[in-house]
Every structure is written in C-alpha cells, then in structure tokens.
C-alpha cells in the first residue's frame, strides 16, 4: 500500500473534494439564466463557460441536480435514428460521449455494448433496413443482421421459431452504449461550477417577466433576477414553464416507467430492444437488468409506478428471455416525458426574442445531453441557431415540417 494513502487513513479529516460550492445568495443580474439543472441545462452551462467564456450564468432548479428525468432514464446512448437530421445530431452526441470522462475528469462509466433492435415482422425488418441505410450514408455504423449473427452476439436470446413472435432479424448498431446518468450531470455541474457558473437548487421559477416580445427577468421563490437571455430545459414541466412565458407547446406530458432486477452475473452484453414487443433491456456493470417499455396510456404529471406496466413488460420480456422468470424486480420508478407529435425534440427559438427552449425530449433525451448542451450554448452565446438544430425548431409545426422519428424513437429510447 502506498505510504501516501496511510496519511489519509490517519488524518482526522479526509480531504474529500467538495463537488459543488456552497450555495450563495442570488445575484440581481445574470447574463444568462438557465432554468432546469438536469443534464441538458448543466451541459449548456458548462459549454457556455468553457467554449464561449460566459461565466455570469446561473442554473436554477425547483428540485435538486439531476433529480428529474436525468436520473430516471435508462441511460442508453445510440445514433441509429431514422431521419438524416436526427442521425447527424445523435452521431455528434455519441462522439462527445466517448470523450466525456476525459473532458470532465469524472468517470461516467461509458460502456460500448452494441445495440440490437429486434424485428419480428416484415414491416419491422423494412424499417431496420431503412435505418441501416440512412445511418451508413451518414457514416454511422449500423447493419441489418440475420438470426445466426444475432445468436453469435447474444446467445441467451430466445431465437426459437416456435416463439409466439419469432425474431426475423435485427438492426445492429455497434456504437450503442450505456453510461452512468447521474455522473454526467454531476460531472458537468462540477466542471461548470469550477469555472464560476452558479448552481441554485430548490429555486423555483414562479414567473417570467416580459417587455413586449423580450424576457427581462425571471421571478423565483428567492426573488427576482434580471437576465439578458434565458433558456428553459425542464423536461416534464416544459408546458407549465412555457405557459408562464406566454406560449403553448406541441407537447403532452406522459409518464414513462422503468425498473431494474436484482443483480445477476454478467450474461447480457448488447442492449436488446424489441419495438414489436414494446420492451428493451440492458445489463449494468453492477449486474442489474434495466428494463423498460413504452410510455403510459394517458397524460399525467405523476412519477408513480403501476402494476399494469410491469405485468405487460414482463410478459413481453419473458418471450425474449424465458429463463428470467424467477428473477425479482429490485427497484421501480417513473419519469414524466414531453411527448411531441412527431417524436422529435424541440430546440432553439421561441416566440420570445431572447428566450430559448430545449424541450420535447420524450423518452430519448439522455443520449442527446452533450450535443444538446454544446449546441444550445452556441445558440445562447451567438444568438443564432446552428444548422444542426434548425430542423428541430418549434416553428416547424407552424410550417407543417414535422420530423417523423417514431420508427426509431418510440420504444428504442
């Protein structure tokens, strides 16, 4: 054992590094106010300070850091989307994720597993082929594979032709990965705070002050602050905050549930998704199976779990892995998701000139954390929306230019 380590063992105070600075009073004026201290908001704050030198920035949250959907997703990262706009966007995100542990000096436990989207019908095979071709065209590694190749990648999967819905093929996406979601928010928060960004938890926005079509300030339960620009990144509460700012969104809020099993020995390397059976599963480094399915059947602002969800999810999962029937569920939870009509997010400008939005992330927001933060920071710093984000503008609905991503986002997450 190194002698240096003994020193800490004998010392009265362990010199643990404080992750975030103690909370300070709110200042009356900030250059930029970011509402929502989830992964997206914190990433935007980090890139504002790092890339654009803007440090008079505060991040507000009515709860705590990463207490919303950032800590409630199933932590899957992939870029095998359907629309060219989507693939380009998520490909940049995957590239940023790969370097993130180094960049933030915080281990995000990024683990590339490969991502299998199983096809049980001819229609699903066709979509898989379509996605593979779009992906390859844009330099993203994806391939339509047959049952023999699936068996090689995931020998434990039930590939019997006697199954109720036999597997016909799969879209295989080797860069598909999982990561530790909390670590990403904490890493961004710590790095941003080190550069002078202020984090204010338990600070709820209660009103948006406007002058004409400009935002001049934000009212909170701790007082009013003025700002030159503001960003809302509050998945699950997007419509409520937008209503305070005075506009409506093409969003309905629906719970998305998930659960994990008791820890098992490592047996499942790839992430397995079945859109036809409405389920997906991956095994964490701790050995727990992370399992989820489609969103609930009706809009709700509640993070409750239901038995119905688990009954339907398990009946589908046991089709794929019959030997799991004795395994117990360890934890269950839900997040509330912003569902858009076209299954694509909403990023960029709003009807207010200096108020920007990052919303509509439905069930697929985690994987976009770095790229969204980086590009929203660029938007806030320059006042111009980068080309990568333009197709996702809120205005696309007014001009009927939706970005249909349902085939790749509905259950895949």
């Amino acid at each position, binding site marked *: 054992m190194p002698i240096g380590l003994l020193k800490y063992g004998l010392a009265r105070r362990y010199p643990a590094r404080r992750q975030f600075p103690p909370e300070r009073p709110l200042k009356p004026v900030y250059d930029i106010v970011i509402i929502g201290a989830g992964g997206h908001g914190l990433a935007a704050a980090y890139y504002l300070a790092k890339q654009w030198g803007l440090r008079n920035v505060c991040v507000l949250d009515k709860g705590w850091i990463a207490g919303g959907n950032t800590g409630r997703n199933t932590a899957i990262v992939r870029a095998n989307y359907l629309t060219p706009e989507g693939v380009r966007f998520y490909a940049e995100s995957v590239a940023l994720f790969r370097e993130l542990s180094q960049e933030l000096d915080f281990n995000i436990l990024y683990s590339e597993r490969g991502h299998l989207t199983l096809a049980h019908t001819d229609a699903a095979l066709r979509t898989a082929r379509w996605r593979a071709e779009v992906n390859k065209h844009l330099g993203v590694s994806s391939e339509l594979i047959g049952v023999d190749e699936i068996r090689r990648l995931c020998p434990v999967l039930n590939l019997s032709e006697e199954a109720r819905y036999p597997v016909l093929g799969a879209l295989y996406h080797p860069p598909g990965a999982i990561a530790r979601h909390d670590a990403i928010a904490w890493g961004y928060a710590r790095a941003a705070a080190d550069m002078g960004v202020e984090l204010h938890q338990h600070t709820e926005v209660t009103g948006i002050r406007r002058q004409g079509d400009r935002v001049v300030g934000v009212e909170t339960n701790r007082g009013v602050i003025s700002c030159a620009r503001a960003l809302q990144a509050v998945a699950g*509460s997007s*419509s*409520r905050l937008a*209503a305070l700012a005075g506009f*409506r*969104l*093409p*969003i*309905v*809020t629906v719970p998305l549930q998930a659960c994990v099993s008791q820890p098992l020995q490592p047996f499942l390397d790839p992430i397995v998704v079945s859109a036809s059976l409405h389920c997906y599963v991956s095994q964490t480094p701790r050995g727990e199976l992370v399992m989820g399915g489609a969103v609930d*059947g*009706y*809009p*709700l*602002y*509640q993070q*409750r779990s*239901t*038995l*119905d969800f688990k009954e339907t999810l398990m009946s589908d999962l046991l089709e794929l892995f019959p030997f799991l029937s004795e395994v117990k569920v360890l934890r269950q939870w839900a997040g509330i998701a912003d569902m858009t*009509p076209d299954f694509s997010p909403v990023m960029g400008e709003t009807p207010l000139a200096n108020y920007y939005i990052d919303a509509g992330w439905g069930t697929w927001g985690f994987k976009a954390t770095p790229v969204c933060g980086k590009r929203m920071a660029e938007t806030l710093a320059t006042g111009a929306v980068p080309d990568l984000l333009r197709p996702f503008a809120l205005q696309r*609905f*007014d*001009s*009927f230019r939706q970005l249909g991503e349902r085939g790749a986002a509905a259950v895949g997450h």
Partner: protein
Amino acid sequence: MKLIPCPLNGLRNAEEFVCGGEVQPEPDASQLSAADWAQHVFHRDNRAGLVREWWLHVPSGYWFIAERDTLSDRFLRSYPASELFAKRTPVGPAEPGDR
C-alpha cells in the same frame, strides 16, 4: 388495475380506454390561417391539474367526456358528449353541391 368511470358502461379497467386528448373549441376550418390550424392540430394546453378530455371506451366504441386531475391521477366526473355539445359539427360540405 385502475378503474375509469364510463357514462355508458360504469367502472371499467383502464386498459379498455383510450385518451382522445383535450376538449378544444372546434374551429371553422374554412376560415383558419395555417398558423391557427397548426395551433389547433399540434399545440396543447397540457395543463397540470384539472383537465377536460375526450375518452373512448374501445370495446363499445363509445366516446365521452371525462374531467380528471393530472396531478393526482383521479377521475372526477365523466359524462356524455351531448352535455357539452348541443349540435353535431357537420362533416363535408355544408349544403349539397357546395364544393
């Protein structure tokens, strides 16, 4: 299993129902600008709290109105659409040969 009150069939399993979205005023499609049409088709109040929605009982094909609380997940009242809408919205041309 959650139970939902249907004005026609009484309390039934939630699985038998589909939510049809917020009740909104029916616009006059012939007079609407594209932006107003987009507001009607895509944008929602998406309120946290008391909402009034269309619901469908799938097995009986019966559409009705329900009032519920999206914060507490409670159904407060459900009733036939005729309580809200005195007359049917005409579909197609208003008069024969009016196309």
